[in-house]
């Protein structure tokens, strides 16, 4: 059934943040080699990141980010994998797949290696069903369908903006849970993809994530984290709440479930606790905020929605902590930078390896 030509070869970029090395790409080579990579090098820019031979890539370190964005570079986090969103901004492709450098190829229950990228592409290319829950999960997957009682008028679905994959082995737990259950491993392979219903928020993990840049890209800002910031490990969470609110508003779908990757490295829970500490408290204010956000009807583009969201962040969360005032400003800076680097009307599609 698998096509010999990889799907979307010239329409998808793989964005990888790293500070160490990219040895993990060797294991992904059969699945990733046809695609263009955007490496975002965090940390010390004088360090050389070795990319395995045979990959077509562009690499950006902090100096590049500062050069390209100038004063706007302050919206891109430093010393945190949140910097990956710079890769989304400079990409010229329709789709993005982002993966952490400690995520390896997983095996399904039959022992077969999972092509996570191909599954993400499948998820993105077929519709989502956010308005009514299908008890047999994604009805567009082979071997399944809409169940009895599912209204026919809702069976066309809506375009899928985001595909959120999961992790076998080290699960994405927060620091307190890691401390209580250091040995727990995720061994359960749940063979399902499903649409997260409209009006429901979820914790979006950036380790194994794909999205349609044209549909939702400008909302995929991963916030202010890391160096000089009071918080870490909430970059993807923040982006996830923003994109979900905007997708719900614009009638786009967000899927979660397959594909699985194998998460190999457990981060230090004590380091994590320091990073997450404020987030654990702030979360209690953030969730009600996002659950009750409404966007006006005239917010018809992602950028308009996002800027409106930033205003509400300032108005309602500024009093929780001054950090949110800075974050709201950074959200606007991000949109300005995005629009500068992605002027509408300019041709977005560049085939891989084209000299420009």
């Amino acid at each position, binding site marked *: 059934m698998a096509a010999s030509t990889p799907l979307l070869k010239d329409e998808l970029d793989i964005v990888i943040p790293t500070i160490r090395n990219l040895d993990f790409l060797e294991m992904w080579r059969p699945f990733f080699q046809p695609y263009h990579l955007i490496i975002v090098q965090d940390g010390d820019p004088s360090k050389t990141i070795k990319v395995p031979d045979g990959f077509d890539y562009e690499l950006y370190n902090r100096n590049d980010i500062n050069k390209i964005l100038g004063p706007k570079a302050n919206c891109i986090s430093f010393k945190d994998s949140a910097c990956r969103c710079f890769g989304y901004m400079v990409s010229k492709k329709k789709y993005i797949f982002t993966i952490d450098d400690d995520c390896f190829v997983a095996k399904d229950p039959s022992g077969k290696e999972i092509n996570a990228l191909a599954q993400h592409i499948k998820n993105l290319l077929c519709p989502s069903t956010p308005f009514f829950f299908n008890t047999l999960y994604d009805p567009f997957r082979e071997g399944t369908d809409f*169940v009895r009682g599912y209204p026919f008028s809702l069976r066309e679905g809506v375009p899928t903006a985001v595909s959120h994959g999961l992790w076998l082995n080290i699960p994405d737990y927060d620091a307190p849970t890691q401390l209580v259950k250091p040995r727990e491993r995720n061994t359960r392979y749940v063979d399902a993809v499903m649409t997260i219903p409209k009006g429901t*928020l979820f914790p979006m993990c950036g380790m194994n994530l794909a999205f349609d840049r044209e549909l939702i890209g400008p909302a995929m800002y991963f916030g202010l984290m890391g160096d000089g910031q009071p918080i870490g490990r909430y970059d993807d969470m923040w982006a996830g709440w923003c994109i979900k609110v905007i997708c719900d508003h614009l009638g786009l779908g967000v899927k979660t479930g397959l594909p699985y990757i194998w998460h190999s490295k457990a981060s230090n829970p004590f380091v994590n606790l320091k990073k997450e500490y404020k987030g654990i408290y702030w979360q209690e204010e953030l969730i009600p905020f996002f659950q009750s956000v409404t966007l006006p009807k005239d917010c018809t583009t992602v950028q308009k929605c996002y800027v409106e969201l930033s205003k509400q962040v300032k108005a309602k969360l500024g009093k929780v902590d001054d950090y949110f005032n800075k974050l709201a400003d950074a959200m606007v800076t991000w949109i300005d930078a995005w629009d500068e680097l992605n002027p509408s009307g300019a041709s977005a599609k560049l085939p891989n390896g084209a000299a420009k």
Partner: protein
Amino acid sequence: MSQVIIQDDEVDIVIGAIQSDLTSFMEAWRPMFSRFHLIIVQDPDLNGELKIPGGFNLNLYTKSDMDKVVGSSSSTISFSGYSCRYFGYLMSRKKYIISIDDDCIPAKDSKGELVDAVAQHITNLTTPATPFFFNTLYDPFCKGTDFVRGYPFSLRNGVECGLSCGLWLNLADYDAPTQALKPNARNSRYVDAVLTVPSRTMLPLSGINIAFNNELVGPALLPAFRLTKEGKFRWETVEDIWTGMCAKVVCDHLKLGVKSGLPYVWRQERGSAVESLKKEWEGVQLMEEVVPFFQSVRLSEAAVTAEDCVAEIAASVKEQLGRSNPMFARAAETMVEWIKLWKQVRSQ
């Protein structure tokens, strides 16, 4: 995570008998059913005596029992066909009720082991649900998993689970048009997950394999929505879909959870989708009106029990849907009758 121990005598297994010979059904389920009390209700349209193997602790109800209890007090409540099980719910005094269609047998999981659907439903009902925020690793109370990073701590206690909806291998619960178009489609995918269906999200709650907390939501499991030509195959009914959405609205309002996923049952071949389609597809058409209604219905602060909620839903049905189609007006009437009957039976 502490184990919830429930007594066997807190559970009733209610089986609606649409076919007379229950031998192979009961024998297939014997290992899972034998500990519990069973209520078997015979479809009032089914003549003759049911064939039921021995060795079970059960009560059997037939048309004559229905006539005694309901009498002539109601002309709108019908226990015909699949709705016969609701009489069993009415008669039960247990806290948890589990109900499985009589054409389903135990399924095998992906390891090839028989699934104890009863035990899984009990687990689902006795562990908390998490309807206010989606956990990407599904049921966090399952062994070997937990809440993921970013899940608010204040929501990690969860709420009580009101309803547990299981799934089906082999013959999935498709409607007649879908099954007729794909006559060989069989569900062979075992999805090893239970998840809470988020608050305010509606779903088509199939009655083929369900369980519920009778104390919390009992009155909401009601026979109300009969199609004009309702038949004896699931393809010819939507009564459970209607009831399921009522129950979901009630659970959402009372801040109870609804879980979907495991357990699977193996649903055997029965009937012809094409024949059912030829007979009628009124149910399929009516969903177009029914679903938007349930998605938008809101109940008042004064509704604090399942009975209150059902009464308010019935009033909304009458007002909003009743005008367009007498079927809905009838359904609303039946719901009101049902609550009266429920209270009457409970007070005896």
